[in-house]
């Protein structure tokens, strides 16, 4: 196995706090770290606008801390490594994001994240905090069959929602409108991932899964959740040829559609490999008559130093194109 056990950290129990301190010190014009360990926009968005909050387990950096900023999220609530934050911290995040227009709590669909978000909403209700809505986001076609989309996991493709919803909330859209837009982007997005080599949990030092030297796993989740099964390692083109058709069939994307394409590096893939993979995606989309409105390739939602990538497509109409093109200024996403 090619797992990396050498990590440059200090005491494992301080890992999340120290990471957040370093991050916030590096980008003080974009974000601020609260005493409770939340990442919030350095300059709050305009009064009356809908606040956007997302919580998640840590260990996926730059997600989501890197997506807090103008035109993006208002607050990120980081949990411990790969573990959803608790409801009290989420409520704290909701309070910080409130600018008079209500708050949309975005939840990347994982059981822990959903449960804690639901508890947070119950707490808000109990405390009389109104104008808070929640939206479940998911995109991973390997985690539940077509027809059971709401059972699917949230993975790298949520990137599109962060970006477009972030832009939309800046326009002064209402809370119900924001929620509907988040659902629209979610429902237009499909993702499939592949893993080559595992990451290690930085605290336990445990390798997240095992794969033979000539094996890959298609559909692996962002915490090493098993996908559709193992396959022999093939070349880049053959890998895309295996991954793209199920993505296209699921929505389905059809000839004449326009799409954004996102290739997310799970950690230690080289840009070289990602570009070679993207080349094949572009060729296949050409052949399928699907237009590429824009492409984005990089490490945005990682699973520590896992080698692998997620391929994500989002079908766009004029509204989504405008939102995609709108400016954004997070520490790890500038547009």
């Amino acid at each position, binding site marked *: 196995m090619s797992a990396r056990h050498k990590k440059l950290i200090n005491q494992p129990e301080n890992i999340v706090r120290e990471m957040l301190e370093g991050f916030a010190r590096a980008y003080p014009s974009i974000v601020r770290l609260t005493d409770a360990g939340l990442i919030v926009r350095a300059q709050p968005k305009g009064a009356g606008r809908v606040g956007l909050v997302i919580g998640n387990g840590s260990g996926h950096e730059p997600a989501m801390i890197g997506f807090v900023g103008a035109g993006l999220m208002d607050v990120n609530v980081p949990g411990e490594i790969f*573990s*959803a934050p*608790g409801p009290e911290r989420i409520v704290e995040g909701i309070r910080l994001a409130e600018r008079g227009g209500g708050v949309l709590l975005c939840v990347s669909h994982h059981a822990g994240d959903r449960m804690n978000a639901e508890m947070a909403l119950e707490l808000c209700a109990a405390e009389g905090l109104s104008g808070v809505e929640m939206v479940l986001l998911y995109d991973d076609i390997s985690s539940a069959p077509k027809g059971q989309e709401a059972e699917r996991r949230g993975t790298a493709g949520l990137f599109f929602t962060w970006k477009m919803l972030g832009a939309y909330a800046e326009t002064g859209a209402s809370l119900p409108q924001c929620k509907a837009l988040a659902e629209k982007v979610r429902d237009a997005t499909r993702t499939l991932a592949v893993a080559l080599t595992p990451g290690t949990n930085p605290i336990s030092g445990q390798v997240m899964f095992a794969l033979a030297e000539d094996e890959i796993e298609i559909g692996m989740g962002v915490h090493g959740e*098993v996908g559709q099964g193992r396959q022999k390692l093939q070349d880049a083109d053959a890998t895309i040829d295996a991954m793209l058709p199920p993505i296209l069939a699921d929505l389905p994307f059809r000839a004449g559609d326009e799409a954004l394409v996102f290739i997310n590096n799970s950690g230690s893939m080289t840009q070289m490999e990602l570009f070679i993979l993207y080349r094949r995606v572009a060729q296949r989309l050409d052949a399928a008559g699907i237009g590429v409105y824009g492409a984005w390739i990089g490490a945005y939602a990682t699973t520590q130093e896992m080698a692998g990538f997620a391929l994500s497509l989002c079908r766009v109409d004029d509204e989504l194109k405008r939102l995609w093109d709108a400016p954004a200024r997070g520490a790890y996403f500038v547009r």
Partner: protein
Amino acid sequence: MNWAEVLGAVEAMYAQKRDELNALDAALGDGDHGTALHTAFKEIAARAPELAQARPAEILKAAALTLMNRMGGSSGALYGTLFLRASVEVKDLDRLTGEDMARMWEAGLEGVMQRGGAQVGDKTMVDALAPAVIAFRDSISQGRPAAEAYEAAAAAARFGAVKTSELVAKHGRAKFVGQRALGQIDAGAASTALLFEALRNYWREKGG
């Protein structure tokens, strides 16, 4: 009985079984279940002195909030919900009778099933919790003392936990390992069985 002490006994149990629970979780999940639970209960136990004089419901609520807010993840939410609903059910009572505790655990079970959406047979902590709560209720309804009811509950929980090895998971991270889960005991079911073992041991010693 003193509920701060009870939770201390649970902490001691998890201290001893932490690595075992981690290993169970590692087989099907991310290997942190023992550490997560134990860390939370250490924090709960550390607050025992300040809570020594509090009502059971307050102690249970403090535990619930620590579980929810410090443990995080699915099982933080689920164990937190278990203790929170339990606490609400016995609010304002100074001392809990067997009947009180039966209602309390029933409310907790209902909360866990509602929160997580899992049914018996889905290979989760519910597979240990449901039989434990039912056995407890049956014993109490038959007029047995709480100590005996906890004997029955612990046995039922253990049996339910062991039986999870015959199941394929429908929830939690284990859901994503599919058939590979066969033959493996679910970590959350095991930790629930240990919770009831700790309760049983406490009642065995302290009576009641």
